[in-house]
């Protein structure tokens, strides 16, 4: 199992995920640093991502769009807060309009990614925070209303799992 642990804090609205890869740290870093590799894993196969701008420097911008099976494009942006090559990355992740300009009224999430070398390869710690409860609600509604990305398709499974965990 690649994913070692997942912690979700429902009060702070944070997700912390630890994954262990059997590859050296510079190789794992390339998955983030090389846009051609990044677009092979960022979006789900049904909503592949295309990265147009990719400037991994502090204050730098990354722009991308995900394409739905119907060919509709969902553009997004990253703003790089901090970066230490082959070690860590902190960024803001938000939505853009059709011209690629950030939408201010749309939810923004903060993400921190940290890589460390282990005996078996590389550990990736990922920390993701919703900016506010309102923004989180907005993301849910979008998932429910528009079928954004893979959210809708999976909601049944997620709810079923949550519900069975509750009953257990």
């Amino acid at each position, binding site marked *: 199992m690649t994913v070692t642990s997942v912690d979700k804090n429902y009060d702070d609205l944070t997700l912390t995920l630890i994954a262990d890869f059997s590859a050296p740290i510079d190789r794992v870093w390339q998955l983030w640093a090389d846009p051609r590799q990044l677009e*092979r894993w960022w979006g789900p196969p049904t909503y592949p991502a295309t990265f147009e701008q990719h400037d991994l420097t502090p204050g730098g911008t990354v722009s991308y769009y995900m394409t739905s099976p119907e060919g509709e494009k969902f553009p997004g942006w990253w703003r790089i807060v901090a970066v230490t090559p082959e070690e860590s990355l902190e960024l803001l992740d938000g939505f853009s309009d059709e011209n690629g300009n950030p939408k201010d009224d749309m939810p923004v999430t903060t993400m921190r990614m940290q890589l460390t070398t282990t005996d078996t390869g590389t550990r990736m710690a990922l920390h993701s925070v919703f900016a506010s409860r309102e923004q989180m609600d907005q993301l849910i509604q979008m998932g429910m209303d528009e079928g954004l990305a893979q959210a809708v398709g*999976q909601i049944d499974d997620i*709810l079923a799992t949550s519900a069975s965990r*509750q009953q257990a």
Partner: protein
Amino acid sequence: MNEAGVDRMFHALADSTRRDIVRRAVTGDLSVSRLAEGYAMSFAAVQKHIAVLEKVGLVTKKRRGREYLVSTDPDALVLARLALDQLEEAWRGRVDRMADLLAETAPPEQRTPTKGQDR
């Protein structure tokens, strides 16, 4: 909401028809009869499902003319759970794809463990 309340809410959501109702009623402009049209069950059965959801506070009904409109009104905790579960699923998918990419592009010498501790 206390723990018993959360339990009741998730029990209410354990049924796929009820989950579907919660989703469809997000817009708040569907009547009970419009909702019922989407399911291969009796109107009364759908009404019963809506009543279960209403009891735990996941949906509310409001009268408009001769019919009732149903709208989703989920608790903040349920929303937090949904949001973080969505995010977890997205990241699990991403990590799987990252691992696949790493396996695909690793040069042969990196795949062979030096100390023979591989399976």
